[in-house]
């Protein structure tokens, strides 16, 4: 039994996975109701966590309530496994839950994410935990919680369509590029968290369970596997995802979400996959992008990657 694995003398003052059992039960009950009503935001008693609100406390509380010794955890921030937020959260669960961690998307049972869905398609049995800053998609249209609650209760989403329409009327297209609102199971309009709209289609009929936690706003919501998730649009202005005119500079991928990276102070720049594990996997498979050698020469990537 692994029950004492986390008890290394340093963390013994805490329960397994940091949260006390009563808090876990409360979060677990909220998760079950969230799954039963896809896209509906369940209020929950968000706890103080040992990092500031806005740094992923909602996602951390969900992960803490579901993780166990049999799990393998992957944490990404903007698609990358090696950024500060991802490294800190991964270490938090290594310390408090003796969690087995990985960077490989396929090897993970729980993937906690900020602002991306991995490029590699998720599989049945995996759980994707989103960190959500603003769970209420209607908040910027209607500041009063009492009103947005009624709008969800009565499925009054006309205001959201007016916002999208005004965008089209002024700019010729919907200018929202991230946190693009979706309708879940034909009923609730939901904020997919600030993922790029590029990732929205991946949520639709996804075989993995998707859980959303907003720590500061004290909301939990969910999309069960194989659930319809439709990005809001109009017949004559269908939803479109971003596209790029050049491939990933490192791995040459043409079907991934790319970040723009400034490489010098003379206007040099390159586009690279935001999903760092996906890009590394492709390079290891022998895919080379046009800027790989240049990136290696300025130590943006390891030399052997470029070989």
């Amino acid at each position, binding site marked *: *039994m*692994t*029950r004492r694995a986390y008890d290394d003398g340093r963390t013994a003052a805490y*329960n*397994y996975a940091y949260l006390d*059992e*009563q808090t*876990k*039960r*409360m979060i*677990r*009950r*909220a*998760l*079950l*109701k*969230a*799954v*039963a*009503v*896809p896209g*509906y935001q*369940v*209020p929950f008693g968000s706890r103080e966590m040992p990092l500031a609100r806005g740094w992923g406390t909602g996602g951390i509380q969900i992960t803490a*309530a*579901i*993780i*166990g*010794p*049999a799990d393998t955890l992957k944490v990404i921030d903007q698609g990358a496994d090696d950024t500060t937020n991802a490294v800190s959260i991964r270490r938090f669960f290594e310390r408090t839950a003796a969690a087995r961690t990985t960077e490989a998307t396929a090897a993970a049972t729980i993937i906690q994410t900020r602002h991306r869905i991995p490029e590699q398609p998720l599989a049945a049995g995996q759980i994707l935990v989103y960190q959500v800053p603003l769970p209420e998609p209607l908040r910027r249209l209607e500041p009063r919680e009492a009103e947005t*609650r*009624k709008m*969800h*209760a*009565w499925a009054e989403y006309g205001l959201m369509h007016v916002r999208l329409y005004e965008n089209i009327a002024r700019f010729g297209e919907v200018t929202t590029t991230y946190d693009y609102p979706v309708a879940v*199971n034909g*009923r*609730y309009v939901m904020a997919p968290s600030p993922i790029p709209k590029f990732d929205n289609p991946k949520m639709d*009929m996804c*075989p993995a*369970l998707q859980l959303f936690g907003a720590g500061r706003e004290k909301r939990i919501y969910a*999309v*069960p*596997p*194989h*659930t*319809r998730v439709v990005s809001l649009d109009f017949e004559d202005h269908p939803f479109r995802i971003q596209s790029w005119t050049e491939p990933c500079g490192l791995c040459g991928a043409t079907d991934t979400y790319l970040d723009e990276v400034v490489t010098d102070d003379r206007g040099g720049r390159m586009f690279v996959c935001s999903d760092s594990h996906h890009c590394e996997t492709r390079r290891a498979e022998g895919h080379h992008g046009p800027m790989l050698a240049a990136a290696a020469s300025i130590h943006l990537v390891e030399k052997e990657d470029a070989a």
Partner: protein
Amino acid sequence: MTGNAEILQAGFADPVFDSQRAFRTVLGALSEPGLVAELDPALTPPPGLEPATAIALLTLADYETPVWLPPALAAGAAGRWLRFHAGAPLTTTPADSAYAVITAGAEAPELFDFHPGDDQFPDRSTTIFIQCTSLEGGLPVILAGPGIPGSRRFAPQGPVPEFWRAAAANHARYPLGVDCLFTAGRRIAGLPRSTRIETGETR
């Protein structure tokens, strides 16, 4: 034997990890309606509760969640066991309960007697454990909706046609409605309110 002298059945041997494993199974069951899963924590339930019902209640219930049990169970060992191990209050009003246990085919309140949530807070509804003799080999229904690719056949032994009509009516008031967990032995299957139910298939 009188109530005081009766020896209480034990709870989880390892509350932290037993409840974590059990929760993941219940979460999976409710995420993929009609898919039968097995709860593995070792637990001897009190008389009247299926092992799966007892494990799930110990995992989810506490002082915040009023539980409705059939009167015979509430007055007996099951009621004492639940109050002792989970600290959960027992209620005699189905509409006040967060969790409820009924036995399929036995006399019980209607699904509509339990709390369906309200339009602004549909999460406040009752979750009902429906204890069956088996989760296979009964009257089949076809399920569809979130958590189900296409459709899924589900045939627990115990629920009668009137129950499935009530369950279909429960779905019709989505996003309100109760959520059901079917239990038999250590096995469990979910039926959230989001699931469409088609009956009338010939066996």
